[in-house]
């Protein structure tokens, strides 16, 4: 008979150290291949590039942990970017090209993200349609809406506004740019929410067994809805950081972001079926994906065109490791 108060057996699990190990190996490989790799410029560059997908992937971690999925985030970002630019441009004649217009644009992005997320969530929870189907549908809808808004071409932000807005992407404090700072803040909040709030607990409970959650008086639909709404809001935030980078939006904006976000979540050790998620893992997943691209660009060892292939292989590997962690 075992004693109920016996200490826990400490076991280092592959699912925990796997992603960390992979990241460390990538960093070492990068440093060996190119001396500039660990330079300040490259590091901030990698982090800034990770920020957009990263911010979205944090939200995606919650959605997936609660047993859901959202395929629409990439085109949602494109649509929000397009909408934001249109609104800001249209305000220039009446309000002039100033900070207030940009603030209104940001508010529009946040509201549109929240609304889009709520819409996904309501369709999934109230009408009981499969998340995959709903978000596959909305993915197509947003993508076509942005193409329509841009009339098949590119929507460009008013030139004066653009230079006013640019510091949001390029500026920062102590040499750390805003996207990195916002990303870090989102990650810290996300990790705390996942780990130690009732909401995070409920997400994991719903993802591991919805029936049990329901019988335990968890407000299953509301929690689900909130995961999609939060993700929508985060897509809005990511778009706010992204628009000043190019100052434009087209039908190609945010292409495949959904896949990268989902991949990052899975590589980070969150279970695709739901029930278990960790935000810090997602961060590592995002960094791994960005680093691969970065490394291929810095070295001419492997063609950068093979980026997708390598990322794909890593995703499959991550899932295999997850399964082994379970079967032991």
């Amino acid at each position, binding site marked *: 008979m*075992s004693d109920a108060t016996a200490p826990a057996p400490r076991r280092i699990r592959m699912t925990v150290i796997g992603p960390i190990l992979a990241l460390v190996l990538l960093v070492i490989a990068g440093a060996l291949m190119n001396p500039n790799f660990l330079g300040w410029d490259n590091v901030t560059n990698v982090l800034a590039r990770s920020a957009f997908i990263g911010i979205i992937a944090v939200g995606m971690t919650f959605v997936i942990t609660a047993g859901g999925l959202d395929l629409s985030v990439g085109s949602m970002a494109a649509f929000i970017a397009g909408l934001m630019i249109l609104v800001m441009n249209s305000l220039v004649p009446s309000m002039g090209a100033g900070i207030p217009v940009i603030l209104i644009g940001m508010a529009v992005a946040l509201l549109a993200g929240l609304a889009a997320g709520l819409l996904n969530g309501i369709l999934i929870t109230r009408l009981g349609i499969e998340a995959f189907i709903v978000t596959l549908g909305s993915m197509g809808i947003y993508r076509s809406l942005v193409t329509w808004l841009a009339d098949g071409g590119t929507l460009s932000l008013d030139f004066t506004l653009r230079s006013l807005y640019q510091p949001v992407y390029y500026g920062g404090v102590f040499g750390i740019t805003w996207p990195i700072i916002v990303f870090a803040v989102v990650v810290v909040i996300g990790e705390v929410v996942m780990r130690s709030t009732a909401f995070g607990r409920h997400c994991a*409970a719903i993802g591991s067994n919805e029936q049990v959650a329901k019988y335990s008086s968890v407000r299953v639909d509301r929690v689900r809805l909130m995961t999609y709404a939060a993700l929508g809001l985060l897509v809005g935030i990511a778009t706010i950081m992204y628009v000043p980078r190019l100052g434009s939006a087209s039908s190609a904006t945010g292409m495949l972001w959904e896949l990268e976000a989902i991949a990052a979540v899975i590589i980070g050790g969150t279970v695709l079926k739901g029930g278990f998620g960790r935000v810090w893992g997602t961060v590592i997943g995002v960094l791994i994906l960005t680093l691969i691209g970065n490394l291929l660009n810095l070295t001419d060892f492997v063609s950068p065109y093979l980026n997708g292939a390598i990322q794909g292989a890593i995703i499959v590997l991550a899932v295999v490791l997850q399964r082994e962690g379970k079967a032991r």
Partner: protein
Amino acid sequence: MSVLALRHVSRSFGPIEVLHGVDIALRPGRVHALIGENGAGKSTTMKILAGYQPPSSGQVLLDGQPVSFASMGEAEAQGISMIHQEFNLAEQLTVEQNIFLGRELKRGPLLDKPAMRARTRELLDRLECRVSPDRVVSTLSNSDKQMVEIAKALLRDTRVLVMDEPTAVLTRAETAILLRQVRALRKAGTAVLFTSHKLDEVEQIADDLTIMRDGRVVWTGEAAAMDQHAMANAMVGREMSDLFPAKVSTPGEVALEVRNLTVPGFSRDIGFTLRRGEILGVAGLIGSGRTETFEGLCGLRPATGDVKIFGQPVRIDHPWQAQDLGLCYLTEDRKTRGLLLGKGLRENLTLQALSKFDRGLIDTTAEERALDQAIADFDIRGHRAAMVGNLSGGNQQKLLFAKTLLADPRIIVIDEPTRGIDIGTKQQMYVLIRRLAAEGRAIVVISSEMQEVIGLSDRILVMRHGRITGELGADATEDAIVKLAMGVATEREPA
């Protein structure tokens, strides 16, 4: 001359040894009962016998020769089948597909469906089970699922049949059928090993008996040498007193008043009142709609009707609304509705009453304290850091109890409170339920165990085909309940 035996078998999970030098021998043509408290190691012993798990040390002997089964398939090839405590069915397949899973009959390259259909019918008939072979398993009741499990084992020509708590989810009538099958197998020379917490069954059918406590065999021999009381004492290692606490209830104000409750498809026009301090038993056959009625009441399925809680008319569409009103339902199905098997004890314990630990962030220290308290109060045994799925069945049940009570409900509906619980713990549970009533809570106990309903309740409602067919007082007899449950008598006796 034993077919299958264990010699000095020990088994550890990680650093913890749960079996310490177990010896057991199964003989052909004999029924061997293995009994013991929750977590004593019965399931583990059975799994080792049937080749599902290897021993950490010691030997498995088949016909006197040491064997080590590389897989359950190998054990099965030797004629050893096991029916698990948890169902092992493919939920999305039909009854027939499940019975023949992995051993489909073929004619040439194609499946021989008529032959499989005929064989399935025959097996189900033998078990007097009336489900259609086409039914998808996920739509079956627990007892029908159990019958399918048994049919699956009967299909194989088994020399040794190992059954882990096969009757836990069966009604009396179904249990009788199962025991008839077991007798037939015994006559055919099969060695049968089974475990049950219902000692009357053990007394009825066992030839040999082994009693385990804390991972050791404490008694083994001819079953005839022990009566139920002696078995219970040997299991718990102390003298057992009365199973049921005295019925000292002083009913207070009306806590729950239900009128015209209808759960579409399951029950109609249910009405009753329940007072504080009272234990209301709900009896009926499996399938009489008891569970569904009370799930409907607690917002777990669509229902209509007038419900008053402490005099206030209320509307309950969701379980959390019920909980906010102080009404909780404790499910009969701990595996798929009660507990998150892949999570730890702490997370399960506090899931239902998480708001109590929510200070913006969850106060894990308070959670740990609650877990300490629950482990002590309910005598939960098992690894504190274990996944709940690895706890023994009875200990899971105790955890489920602790979890629901943490929400501090004023009205509690307990569905099958002691399913799979050993007799010592049962006694503790009964005392606990009585104490909850004495504290002024109002309690409904749904149970398929007649003795439990009679021994525990102040009043008894009997249901049949989704309707209440009668109400009996604390002195109800088994006979009176059965009559109402079967529809022989329908008058309302004065309470």
